[in-house]
């Protein structure tokens, strides 16, 4: 394991912890997007660019959008 991979692993672990400790779901959606980007950097560092691209697409487009939309639905229901 080289320095780049070790750094990426540590960043992923740190941002993952940050996602868990973000209590407000709205902010959590944004932090989860950053976690997705960190994960894709890790995939790139272990020479898996295909997986990294899919991870960027899913982690920073689909997941945050779906979380936000689901939250909008829930709020609509609460009112």
């Amino acid at each position: 394991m080289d320095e780049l991979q070790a750094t990426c692993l540590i960043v992923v672990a740190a941002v993952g912890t940050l996602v868990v400790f973000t209590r407000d779901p709205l902010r959590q959606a944004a932090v989860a997007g950053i976690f997705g980007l960190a994960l894709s950097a890790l995939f790139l560092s272990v020479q898996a660019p295909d997986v990294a691209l899919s991870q960027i697409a899913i982690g920073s487009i689909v997941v945050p959008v779906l979380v936000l939309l689901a939250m909008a639905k829930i709020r609509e229901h609460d009112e």
Partner: protein
Amino acid sequence: MSRRVRCWLALVALAGLGATLVVAVVDLEPFGHYPGPYGDVLAKVVPGERHTGQLVAATTFDYRGFDTLGEELILFTAACGCAALLRLRRRERGEQAGAPPRPAPSFAARALGGALVGPVLVVSAYVVLHGHLTPGGGFSGGVLGAGALLLAYAAGQRLRLGRVGSIGLLEATEAVGAGGFLLIALGGLLALGATLQNFGPLGTSGMLISAGTIPMGNVAVGIEVTGAVALIIAEFLEQALLEDRG
């Protein structure tokens, strides 16, 4: 169940999970060491047999294309299920309220969304079409395509094709992509006697049209994923992504 019991239950479960993880990690091969034979075999065989250096695409769309076929149908089914479930809820709520008027997007959203739609669409098409040459392919390109549609929505634009609303358009897109991949699978069966056997022209390695059915599969999957992801998001938005159903 009292809080105490729940805490103990969670602790026992976590300890079990932790122990299993430790056992699993201890038995793993050392970091970066790959013991399986398939990667090496494919690395030797693919450039000669399929005229491409993109081993990942060759594996997912050719040698193990059957898995991809299954995954395509899973995504297809998931999007259909999502659409069916959410649509039911919308009807239940009754039409008397009608569609709530959409707030007009701010100037920043319109400007940024509008400016990005074109470039993102181009990148999406590039990623899909070069799936057999460079990293990427139908899946990531398809999600990017759905992202471009989402940007158009954020910018307040509407998408219509004649009398077909955008939900109908997305459903058709998804179906065309999934059907296209099925046709490629069937084509291999008819032409060479095995499902998903590569029957396309292999061409020269590194050219846009090469590697036979691999780029065709990428295009089919790209179309399907764009339709499926955009359909799921559109159904979540409850009104169509860019325009009402009617």
